[in-house]
């Protein structure tokens, strides 16, 4: 596949650029590298929740040519103005949490089964491989069903309560739309991915960031069995994102942390993201959050995310996706062998 270089003028040919964590912010340098210095940015710091407005450092990195969309604050105002919707949303989140907990119980059992199968001393290694594949297949099925159920839950909520027809939401969406329209690029920071996604959906940021593709992919596989994620939405302006922001832009949001104190250390899908990418599952700070040296575990993770490719967003990662939202050659990804690799061709 021919290389897809980063265009010189990203505002004319907008792309998504995904970064590693910005604890030591490099966003100013990245903006300069991408030729976006001096452009006016919309910033989305909703993942920081009640500290959303503490964005002085980010504004400084962007040369103070930016406007914070203030989605978290807007969301609080919507809840206050429309208590019925707030209560309905609280109930939706409670059901989602319960779904997540029960799905996790199933995953835990599957992980335990994998552990026991791998401990088994095989008389024929193929038998163990088949048993492992069976469990992985069950996990993938659970992943798909969970995403479908969460999708149904959210769809029911929007169909029944019609936030898009409620005054508080309509006013807020109009306000956000005006703010975004006045900018040339967007930055989405890390933080709480659930809160971020909730706000992005409530204020319908998807259409503000991109126009949908003509054809939605019906399946991630084409007839030959290879991945086929269909065309990506057409971006309206370049987007730079990291952490939870990177996850929210992708198709599937995978929660992962292999060393939790109390929660089970099994990765779980949270919900679908905005799907502005194609074939990408973003994994920010993988070395801090994953037992990368446990190759079996990493192989399992890669197998669960397939055919989506797990993108490893380390400290200094900077990955500009192709025009069709795919990973470029050279992106650091988790291979099916459970090891990190540089992607050879665009995926």
């Amino acid at each position, binding site marked *: 596949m021919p290389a897809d270089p980063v265009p010189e003028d990203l505002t004319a040919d907008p792309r998504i650029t995904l970064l590693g*964590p*910005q*604890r030591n912010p490099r966003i100013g340098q990245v903006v300069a590298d991408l030729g976006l210095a001096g452009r006016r940015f919309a910033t989305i710091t909703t*993942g920081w929740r*009640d*500290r959303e407005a503490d964005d002085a450092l980010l504004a400084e990195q962007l040369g103070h040519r930016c406007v914070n969309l203030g989605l978290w604050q807007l969301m609080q105002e919507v809840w206050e103005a429309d208590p019925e919707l707030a209560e309905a949303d609280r109930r939706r989140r409670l059901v989602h949490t319960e779904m997540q907990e029960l799905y996790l119980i199933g995953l835990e059992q599957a992980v335990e089964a994998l552990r026991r199968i791998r401990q088994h001393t095989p008389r024929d290694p193929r038998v163990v491989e088949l048993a492992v594949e069976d469990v992985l297949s069950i996990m993938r099925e659970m992943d798909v069903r969970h995403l479908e159920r969460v999708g149904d839950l959210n769809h029911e909520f929007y169909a029944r309560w019609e936030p898009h027809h409620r005054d508080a939401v309509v006013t807020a969406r109009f306000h956000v739309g005006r703010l975004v329209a006045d900018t040339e690029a967007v930055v989405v920071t*890390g*933080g*709480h*991915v*659930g809160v971020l996604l909730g706000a992005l959906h409530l204020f319908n940021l998807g259409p503000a960031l991109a126009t949908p593709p003509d054809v939605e992919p019906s399946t991630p596989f084409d007839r030959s069995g290879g991945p086929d994620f269909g065309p990506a939405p057409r971006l309206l302006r370049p987007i730079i994102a990291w*952490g*939870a922001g*990177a*996850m929210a832009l992708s198709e599937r949001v995978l*929660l*992962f*942390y292999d060393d*939790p*104190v*109390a*929660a089970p250390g099994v990765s*779980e899908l*949270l919900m679908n993201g905005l799907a502005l990418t194609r074939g990408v599952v973003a994994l*920010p*700070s993988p070395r801090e959050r994953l037992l990368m040296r446990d190759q079996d575990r990493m192989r399992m993770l890669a197998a669960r995310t397939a055919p989506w490719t797990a993108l490893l967003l380390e400290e200094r990662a900077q990955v500009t996706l192709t025009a069709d939202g795919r990973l470029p050659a050279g992106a650091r990804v988790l291979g099916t062998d459970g090891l990190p690799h540089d992607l050879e061709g665009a995926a």
Partner: protein
Amino acid sequence: MSLPTPYPIAPRPKGKLAINRLRERAPLTDAEVEEFLAEHEVPVVEGPRSTFLYRGRADAVAVLHRIVNQPQHVPMKRLDVLDGDPLWYVTIELPAHSRVEYQLEVRQGAAVEAVNDPLNPHVAHSPVGSSSVCQAAGYETPTWVLPQPESRPGELIDWDLPSKALRRTTHNRVYLPARFRRSSSYPLLVVHDGDDYITYAAMKTVLDNLIHHLDMAETIVLFSNPGDRLREYPNHAPHARHVTRELLPALEEELPVVRRSDARALMGASFGAVASLSTAFRSPDTWGNLFLQSGSFVFTDIGSDHGGGPAFDPVVKFMNRYRERPRRVADRMMITCGVYEPLIVPNRSMVPVFESTGAQVRYVESRDGHSWENWRDRLRDGLSWIFPGPQKLVYE
């Protein structure tokens, strides 16, 4: 759900023990013994074997440790020194990752004295005093109990509250997490023996660290302190009334705490665990979570002779009655206990009883004793389970 604690096997060093190498050099001089003591931390831990030492004149010296179901009086052997006091020693095998509390019994004529080990700086604190601690191979003080510069500190505020139920003014401290905002809502944790948890279990530091690292939700913590502990904590109706009907409403009035049982927790150690349990028992559906450490859950299956002394009478009466008719006192219960303390038996026994009520029970054992350091080291397990932080949802 009960959790076996995974303990890696400590490597077994090759060669002779240090004490045996020293003995081979007999007759020993004072300088040789002093050099040996200067070179080694005491007890000398070599793989699974720990050598206890004492330097001084005595008729007999013994290690008095507190490992349940083991001989707790271990005589030490005497090693004469040409020009100085004798050296006493004994080697005991201790499982990896253990923390064992002990004292030395020094007998001189008719005088017998139990003292903390003068050669060992490590001391454990418990409700009944302090003792020396042997940290066996593999034990490490968790990093999250130590101050970490990156952790934003919360704030401790003195908070007195007059109590009609207890007929005294209660002296409490409120912990507000870093970046506390009145516009947010926080879960509430009420801690018995609050000042001891702060002083001996580094609980403020632990809270700062766990909250900073997203292991635990931002939480308002009320550190309460007893008046007459042995009266107020073992199933004392006025204490329960104070906590639920005075303290809780006052806190809800004063601070932005979530007003739901699932966002409230009671915790305590030893008698403080009994106080937590009995307070929740007396107010069903108020306290959704309990964190009980080394609970003094003494009970009898036959008769009422429990051997714990009069202080345990109300405990035994309460526990026996509870065991006859168990009912759910909280939705979620975190229970921890050290395997070397006598209370391990009643704690293990109560886990299935609590589980039978439909409560979600998480039970964690450790190779440790009845001490604040044990309870400190289990805080992360408990606090992050009771009020989990958003770690899996936050990606910077």
